[in-house]
Every structure is written in structure tokens, then in C-alpha cells.
């Protein structure tokens, strides 16, 4: 039988995969994809908490509302982030984060 802990474990593992991607990869687009993976992991734990915390026999929809807003904001974030990456590529001709160091102290 699947318990809440199983969902939280899977969600945490997905988060750490995304986190490892952000730390290990050097391609800015792949880093951005791993960021999406981390957001999706957070969504999974929110939906699991909503399903296991019944209110009047229904899932707690406040948690699913938060997921809805996260998905909306993430979609807007992807659009802006990719526009920034395209502007950066036009300027520097690279997507490798080690080459983008003009703000480095």
C-alpha cells in the first residue's frame, strides 16, 4: 500500500536529481530544465499532502491551488528566462555558464 512517505520520498528524490543537475551541469539551458524538475518535485509533494489531508471527504483543494499558481508562474518564468538566454547568446555566443562571468567578483 502506498503511503504519504512514499510520495514524499519520490518527490524528494526528484528534487535532488534536479538539484544535482543544477550543481553539476554547465549548460545554462540544461540548468534551466533541472530547475523545472525541482519545481515539479515540489508540486508532487503538494498534491500528495492535499490528497492525504481530506476535508469533508474531498482532497484539500488549497494545496492544489498552490500547485496551479506554481505552474502558472513557472510557465511565465520559462518564457522570461529563455528570452534572457537568447539575449545572452546573441551577446556572448555561448550557453556555457563558465564563459558568462562579467558579474563575477
Amino acid at each position, binding site marked *: 500500500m502506498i503511503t504519504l512517505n512514499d510520495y514524499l520520498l519520490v518527490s524528494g528524490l526528484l528534487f535532488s536529481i534536479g538539484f544535482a543537475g543544477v550543481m553539476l551541469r554547465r549548460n545554462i539551458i540544461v540548468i534551466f530544465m533541472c530547475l523545472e524538475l525541482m519545481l515539479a518535485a515540489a508540486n508532487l509533494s503538494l498534491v500528495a499532502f492535499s490528497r492525504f489531508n481530506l476535508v469533508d471527504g474531498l482532497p484539500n483543494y488549497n494545496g492544489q491551488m498552490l500547485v496551479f*499558481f506554481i505552474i502558472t508562474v513557472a510557465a511565465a518564468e520559462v518564457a522570461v528566462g529563455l528570452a534572457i538566454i537568447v539575449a545572452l547568446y546573441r551577446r556572448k555566443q555561448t550557453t556555457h555558464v563558465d564563459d558568462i562571468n562579467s558579474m563575477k567578483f
Partner: protein
Amino acid sequence: MRELFSKKSSLLGLHVDLILLTSRIFFHMSSVLFWIFAVTMLIFGSLVVVLKNPVSSAMSLVVSFIALAAIFIMLDAFFIGIIQVLVYAGAVMVLFLFIIMLLNLREEKGRKFNIPAFVGGLGVTAFFVFFLVKLLSGFEAGKAPMPALGVENMNDAEMIGRTLFTNFTLPFQIVGVLILVATVGVVILSKRELK
């Protein structure tokens, strides 16, 4: 033993047995399906990190998100699952692939391997996983099985719409403004000359 056998072989007994068997299979099926989708999601999530080609990474991310949507649907969050497929696996990933094709990215090669950064990243991740497992093994409230829904027909989309337009009206409008700002921002960022 013989009596039991003759009882079971009677038509009624067989029928009852079949019902019990199918219900038991269905009961196990949901947990088997959960692990199938969870493992698919984690494997393809790892492939996003491991694969060198950004296009393969994006394709693995699509599979990972579709498996995640299946898990959402198994959690009775039908609306969120559909939104996950439409927005993430559809719109966002098309945007990613479009940008990868536009920039004409190739596989990373000829880069010197930064060993301290690699070890540090893996170390922090292992630390996180270790404490996650430690924390979850002591979390007693999470060891209860999934409670059954108290209603016959759940109208998921209706409930979400009702909640969205009663309790969450102000955040909804703020998100509308946010999307407008993002649209204007993207148009300005995409202009040839940034002033």
C-alpha cells in the same frame, strides 16, 4: 480439504473467488502502477542530467513530466494532471526545444572537467538525500495508507474552479498581471538592441 475444493469448484464459489481475485489484483495494481510511474519519472529525470545532448535532455524531461502527470491522476488530482501535460509537456517543452534549435546548440565537448565542483555538487546532493531518508523514516504521520474519498463522484474541475474564484480571486488577478508583465518583458528582451 476435499470439501473446500468442491465448494470452490462450484459456480458460485468460483464467481466469488474471481471477484476477490480481481479486486485484489486491482488493489495491488495501483501500488504497482505507482512504482512503475515513479521509477520512470526518476530514471528519465536522471537522464536529463546525464545526457550530453540538450535535445535528448528535453525529450527525457517530457517523459518525466508525463509520468509525473500520471502520478497526479493516481492522486485524484485530475485537473492538475491534465494541466501538467498541457502546460509542461506541451507548451513549456516546445519552448525549450524551440530555443535549443534556434541557438543551434551541440553537445558539450572539449571542456576541462571541474573536479571540485563535481564532487561538491554530488556531496551536497548526497547530504540532502541522506537527511531526506532519515527524516522520512521517523515521520510517523506519513505511514498511514491513503484515506478513501468520502464522495461517490468527485467533480475535480468544478471544485478547483469554485475554490479559485471564491477564496483565491485576488491571487488569480495578481497572476494575470504577472503574465502581462512577463509578456511585455519578453517582447522587450527579444528586441535586437537593448537600450
